[in-house]
């Protein structure tokens, strides 16, 4: 790229540079702000903050473990449900369906991503929760009730409901990224596999193998979305800071506790505790998204090199 030296270009370049630098400044200042504001709880509790499970603001007990646990468990439930479905959709769209079928389905999947999360939450309260309480939960308890996972009181509100909502919300992003990754696998590989006499299923296996790290990246991107989702989860997860292995029992996520309590955190230590939880979530999503980006660009870069 040639750099010209007219005044206009120079000003143009510096404006662009400022725009780019701004985002770095924002990220750094956010981390700095959160770190400095969470100092009081870091000093008061240290590591106990993360490993203690007692959360009782009125007694000054701040243990964030129930929120970390709830965030991880609801996200894992979401991945367990969403990953097979998203993979299925993406493979169908790229490997099987003709454009006439693929286009409307792809459009519908993208439409799911455009629905505001509060709408998902309302749907969760009015449709999904009663469905789980009256049908799915009853069925699970009848046939799988011997597993402690499915025991307990059925209110329709709880960890499982939160996980299912999240699963629906992260399906579009996983599907879209997996589709891009599969399309990045060069056609020559498919042709080679077919030429060697592979069936469609065997060809797909070859493609999937080539796209493995990109697919893993897509899953991690979905995980990143699930970790930070707030509104919809808050409305159906039950918001109780407890650690339980029972899926029908309520839980609590980091994002939910932040959203629910910031406005009324009267005690400085309480405020600081909330900031520290926010910092934890920020760091985790930061790392998760970074890992995902590395994985996805890995496959795209490789595919390009092969094709070139």
């Amino acid at each position: 790229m040639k750099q010209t030296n007219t005044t206009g270009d120079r000003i143009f370049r510096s404006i662009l540079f400022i725009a780019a630098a701004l985002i770095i400044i924002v990220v750094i200042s956010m981390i700095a702000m959160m770190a400095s504001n969470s100092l009081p709880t870091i000093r008061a509790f240290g590591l106990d903050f993360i490993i203690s499970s007692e959360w009782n603001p009125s007694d000054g007990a701040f243990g964030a473990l129930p929120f970390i646990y709830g965030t991880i468990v609801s996200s894992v439930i979401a991945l367990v449900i969403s990953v097979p479905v998203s993979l299925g959709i993406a493979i169908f769209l790229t490997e099987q369906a003709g454009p006439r079928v693929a286009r409307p389905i792809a459009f519908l999947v993208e439409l799911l991503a455009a629905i505001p999360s509060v709408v998902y939450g309302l749907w969760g309260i009015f449709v999904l929760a009663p469905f789980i309480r009256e049908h799915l939960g009853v069925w699970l308890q009848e046939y799988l009730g011997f597993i402690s996972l499915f025991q307990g009181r059925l209110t329709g509100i709880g960890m499982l409901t939160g996980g299912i909502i999240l699963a629906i919300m992260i399906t579009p992003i996983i599907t879209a990224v997996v589709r891009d990754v599969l399309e990045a696998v060069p056609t020559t590989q498919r042709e080679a596999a077919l030429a060697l006499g592979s069936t469609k299923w065997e060809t797909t296996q070859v493609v999937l193998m080539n796209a493995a790290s990109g697919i893993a990246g897509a899953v991690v991107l979905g995980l990143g979305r699930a970790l930070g989702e707030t509104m919809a989860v808050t409305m159906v997860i039950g918001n109780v800071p407890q650690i339980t292995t029972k899926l029908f029992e309520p839980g609590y996520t980091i994002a939910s506790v932040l959203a629910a309590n910031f406005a009324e955190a009267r005690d400085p230590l309480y405020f600081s505790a909330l900031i520290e939880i926010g910092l934890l979530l920020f760091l985790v999503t930061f790392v998760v998204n970074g890992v995902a980006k590395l994985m996805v660009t890995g496959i795209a870069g490789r595919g390009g090199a092969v094709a070139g």
Partner: protein
Amino acid sequence: MRASNPFFLYAFISVVTLFMLAGCSREPMGSGNSGTAPGGAVRLQGSGASFPKPIYEKWVSEYGKIYPNARVDYQSTGSSAGIKALQQQTADFGASDAPMTDEEMKAAQGGEVLHIPTVLGAVVLTYNLEGLTAPLRLSPQTVVDIFLGRIKKWNDPKIAADNPGVNLPATDITVVYRSDGSGTTSVFNDYLAKVSPDWTVKGQNMTLPQGVGIGAQRNDGVMGQVRQTPNTIGYVELTFAKANDLPVVALKNAAGNFVEASIESVTAAAAEALATTQEDLRADITNAGGANAYPISSYTYVLAYKDQKDGSKGKVLADFLWWATHDGQKFAKDLHYAPLPPEIVARVESRLKLMSSGGTPLRP
């Protein structure tokens, strides 16, 4: 053309800046010696509790009709944020459902803080139980036992004892509570602690034993869960329950009567608590005596500095509060708030007369 672009930009920026400066200087600064002086509109900025927001908005609009030069903006940011805004003087007045503590008053940067009660509210228990025709009746200890998970079934003998002849289902009770910090929870905690030594939770958050309940955000969240989930019981503001026609529990009060929350029973609680109400009006009227008093009633307050730095603003604030606690009270009932009892209005008057600016009383 290309080289002239930046000059256009600079010219544009300087023109915009000029206009902004001109706009600022034209903004009225409230320099008149009286808030209602013609030509000098005064703007007050208040922030705090969300519970009284509907009535404050009503007052602001009605007051604006009478005194067009007084503008009051109220933001419902939550009681804690309201207290913080007052302490740090980022708002002209604060508002809170619970009175400020002594430490919080000490941390206020603008000197002594006055508590002006404006209206009364109440916390009611709402439930979702099929087949009940009359309101469910509960005594205080039963409520505590339900919230502590000691009473697990709706047909528990303790509940049945309060509801003779009512056919209660043998289903599990699910408690729905506020998961966000709120003045509603604070009043409810306060009441439960008063009626039972077993209740140890204080403040704006509720913590329940494992497996007792589910949390929801705000009044609408609690209402949504209770409406949607059979066999639940939760608590919300009276105004909210009335506006949405929720079934509410008749609660046994200190005098032993089962009382439903209503505007009359809440005002009755305030009137009964008069004798024990402190001079500074930081009152706690839960579990008040009196045959008709509803036990989970509370005031909501406007918080203002006794010494107002800005005389014109202070004058408008004092006049507005005077009007709100007198003429303004007639708007309360329609919005399901209980108006102040006359005895309290008299005591509010003496508090408002303390407001001054630079040593001059604002309401002589």
